[in-house]
């Protein structure tokens, strides 16, 4: 009983293949436009892919390849969708919103309302059963939407950034609720938030430009990110290239020429193989002149942005970031466009296999 999808949507440059186990929650991370929502729409049956196939347990969701094309419409798929906005039906009471799934599946009015009451209890909003959705706060409405999705007893729950439209007070409550109801359930959750991934997901998949660029157990991905996006979420600088005897040689990028990065090699990092070098922004110091003397790395950069970051100033240069004190920043006179050197000790750089 697993879920597997293999889909290509040419118009949106999506080409992915992934599987989810019986009781597994997988988080999809990635920048805007990475194709995360497109993937969810394809899984839910709201968008037809150009090629590929998908299977949920013993049910074929679609098969776009070969001669025998199969397309199961969304209502026969057992994949409930929870979007950024609750999208509660405004003309139905909270109770009837939650009863919508079971009612559509053929349960009687009484039966489906009974199921609805159970799920409203599960998400702690049973007291709003008689209200119209227009009278709920954003957080309450999203909890009702969770109850509505669960009441349809989906085989696969699809969540598209369910916390993103909530204010900072409502989000933690919903996150705790999702942690409770998602355990032991198969779900695919799109999120921008490291916290969501850490709290809710067994596994994360990072997507960039319509492709899966990284996947693995949540903690592992954030401990040793291999994609720029995961590195940014984990708060580390990441440079990729080829592992050498004492570090890494990067490929030339628009911002940086091919450089040698001295660092500490991980046990599994093999010279000659693809790898990444990671180091925290706090380990970076900035100089206006090239610093010499091993074992240090000195990268020539052009500053792109400066922003406050706690007690520090985060200085960005393309994909790299350095945290320096405001006084140091003032002394250096940095501003976007300035040329400088990011200097980091070799001992602060971890090199591991990509």
């Amino acid at each position, binding site marked *: 009983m697993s879920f597997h999808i293999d889909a290509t949507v040419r118009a949106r440059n999506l080409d992915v293949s992934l599987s989810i186990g019986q009781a597994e929650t997988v988080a999809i991370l990635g920048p805007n436009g990475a194709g995360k929502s497109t993937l969810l729409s394809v899984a*839910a*049956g*709201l968008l037809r892919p150009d090629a590929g196939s998908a299977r949920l347990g013993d049910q074929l969701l679609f098969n776009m390849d070969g001669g025998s094309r199969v397309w199961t*419409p*969304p*209502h*026969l*798929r*057992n*994949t*409930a*969708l929870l*979007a950024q906005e609750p*999208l509660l*039906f*405004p*003309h*139905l009471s909270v109770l009837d919103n939650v009863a*919508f*799934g079971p009612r*559509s*599946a053929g349960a009687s009015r009484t039966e489906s309302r009974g199921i609805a009451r159970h799920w409203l209890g599960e998400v702690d909003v049973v007291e709003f059963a008689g209200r*119209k*959705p*227009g*009278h*709920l*706060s*954003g*957080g309450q*409405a999203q909890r009702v939407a969770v109850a*509505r*999705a669960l009441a*349809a007893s*989906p085989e696969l729950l*699809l969540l598209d950034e369910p916390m993103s439209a909530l*204010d900072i007070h409502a989000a933690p409550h919903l996150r705790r609720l999702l942690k409770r109801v998602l355990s032991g359930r198969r779900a695919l959750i799109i999120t921008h938030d490291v916290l969501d991934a850490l709290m809710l997901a067994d596994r994360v998949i990072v997507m960039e430009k319509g492709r899966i660029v990284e996947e693995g157990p949540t903690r592992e991905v954030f401990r040793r990110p291999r994609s720029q996006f995961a590195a940014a979420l984990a708060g580390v600088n990441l440079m990729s290239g080829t592992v050498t005897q004492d570090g890494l040689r990067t490929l030339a990028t628009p911002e940086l020429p091919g450089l040698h990065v001295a660092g500490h090699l991980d046990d599994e990092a093999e010279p000659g193989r693809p790898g990444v070098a990671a180091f925290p922004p706090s380990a970076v110091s900035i100089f206006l002149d090239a610093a010499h003397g091993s074992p240090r790395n000195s990268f020539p950069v052009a500053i792109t942005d400066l922003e406050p970051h706690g007690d520090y100033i985060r200085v960005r240069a393309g994909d790299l970031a350095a945290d320096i004190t405001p006084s140091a920043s003032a002394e250096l006179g940095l501003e976007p466009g300035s040329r400088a050197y990011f200097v980091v000790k070799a001992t602060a750089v971890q090199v591991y296999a990509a």
Partner: protein
Amino acid sequence: MNFSGIPRWVYGLAVVGGLFVLLPLAAMVAKVNWAQFIPLVTSDSSLTALGLSLRTSAASTALCIVLGIPLALVLARRPFRGQRLLRAFVLLPLVLPPVVGGIALLYTFGRQGLLGKSLEIAGIQIAFSTTAVVLAQTFVALPFLVVSLEGALRTAGNRYEAVAATLGARPTTILRRVTVPMVLPGLASGAVLSFARSLGEFGATLTFAGSLQGVTRTLPLEIYLQRETDADAAVALSLVLVAVAVIVVGLSYRRPHRADIPAEAAA
């Protein structure tokens, strides 16, 4: 005072525009022979015409709803080849002189018409019957329902339908339990406009259905006929038609209750 951003002279023209509509109505009201008003509007022929108008307009509105909802859905939802052409044709009766519509209907459903011949063989005669009145009114009123419903459907979008589908609702269930209830205000105002247009229909009715008392002579036809002989009766009946129209439109253009508007809920 809130800033309106409207130049002052616009108010002047707006007043002229308002008067342009109100003044003729006032002039008509001034002409009403109040002493004879009740007998004039309760005469046999008047009551028959009014009853026929209300019944046929109700039937036309029902027909507009049955045919207009599918048309609006097809036009509002998925784009397809020839969609713009279809919309243009559906809206054609809005700009077509009703007489022309009547002639077109006659050559469709009349005895020698495109479908009329086959219907005649089946023993069905449509032209110059009450059915013809209903068809003529539906022909001119349908665009009003389609236009306002299509607008409502586009504004509502299909995100709610998508959610309903993933919750396991079949397409027909979605239409019944989500789509139609959500565009009910748009459907209602479209239906009211259709009803009002049906109530006032004259040219197509006269051409396609004729003017037989009790069968096809609706109130506008009765007014036109009376005008030749009895101006007082025509004015009195006109006032009745205005009153009915005002009541119908007034009933449906009340502000909807705020709580039922699918707006973003206040936090």
